């Protein structure tokens, strides 16, 4: 595959979590706000790129039998690093995401890409793979975050409370269901259905062309 394709596949073919159905836990947990969604997406992208690169560089030296253990140690180290960096430089985001930053380590996308891609491809391709899938993930989280936050709170709040876009106006009675857990599942389900539907339409068009 050409290098550009390695990067762009993360935005459609392997769009997480709507086409590559992995990494659902953070999707449900942090998309109550757009800020949380984007923050989590970028943190995951950072870890994904770093772990992909390192695993790709070491792929010839890690024996098959211990590879999963090795990948987990590498991923966990980068998760610890991003946790400390967020605590130091983005304390509001760190508090908002809470324990889900550390749970990036069990996000299946990371181990999945390590095993399926980074362990078999060179570092440049692995970087692009990580970057593409990570940014696609971020966009998905942001999209779901917009839906949930606008419907559920009527406003979009960025950077703590400093930037508030009052999208629905003052008379809007927030549909609080959307920012709670059941709303997350419904939102995820609706988006999953919509994206799958678009995928089916595109397939049909390709076949009849």
């Amino acid at each position, binding site marked *: 595959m050409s290098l550009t394709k390695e990067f762009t596949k993360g935005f459609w073919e392997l769009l997480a979590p709507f086409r590559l159905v992995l990494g659902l836990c953070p999707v449900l947990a942090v998309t109550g706000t757009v800020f949380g969604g984007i923050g989590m997406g970028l943190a995951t992208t950072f870890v994904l790129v770093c772990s992909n690169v390192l695993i790709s560089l070491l792929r010839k030296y890690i024996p098959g039998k211990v590879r999963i253990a090795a990948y987990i*140690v590498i991923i*966990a*180290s980068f998760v610890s690093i991003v946790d400390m960096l967020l605590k130091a430089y983005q304390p509001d985001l760190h508090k908002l995401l809470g324990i889900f930053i550390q749970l990036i380590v069990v996000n299946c996308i990371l181990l999945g890409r390590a095993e399926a891609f980074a362990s078999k491809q060179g570092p440049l391709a692995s970087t692009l793979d990580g970057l593409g899938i990570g940014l696609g993930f971020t966009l998905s989280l942001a999209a779901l975050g917009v839906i949930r936050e606008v419907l559920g709170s009527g406003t979009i709040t960025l950077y703590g409370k400093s930037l508030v876009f009052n999208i629905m106006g003052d008379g809007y009675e927030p549909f609080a269901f959307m920012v709670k857990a059941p709303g997350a599942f419904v939102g995820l389900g609706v988006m999953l259905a919509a994206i799958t539907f678009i995928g089916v339409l595109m397939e049909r068009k390709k076949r009849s062309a």
Partner: protein
Amino acid sequence: MAVVLTLICAASGFLVAWVDSLTRTKIETAQLQKVAGALSQVLPEYDNNPIADRINIELGKDNRGRTQVLKVFPAKKGGQVVGAALPSNAPGYAGNIALVLGIGAESKELTGIYIAEQSETIGPAQKALDPATPEYKDFAGQFQGKSTESEIALGDIDAISGATYSTKGVLAAVNKGIKLFNEHQDQILK
């Protein structure tokens, strides 16, 4: 096989420890910035830097053997301690409520409380506990002037209508703070 895994673990350990050393001071500063905002609201007038003058009081060990430390921020005027602020927390309805309380050195009364962290229910609870709302001034303000000689009883304060557990959580945190202050008064006020 074992060698490779050991090397990877060792290298990871060093990397994480290195980043930790880089970010440690920034993290502590960020945490103290949060406290700074609260201090001016709960302490009487002072001319020192309570954060720079902070006292660490050892509270004994928790069940994992680690020493618990209470950070107290003294307010001074002309070198004399006029009050002190300390953090406290207690469970509310939905999670922890963390607040900072200020106590006057002479009056032995609360000079103010500031609710730093809470995740209570949207509605009457949030309205009264969010420092940005007018209801907050009424709720948190009522603690000013209360004596710290003994615990404050639930009957002595106006509870938040429709948020009893949140009210009890705030009260528990305040009383916990009062208790700690009284226990360590000598250390704090010297």
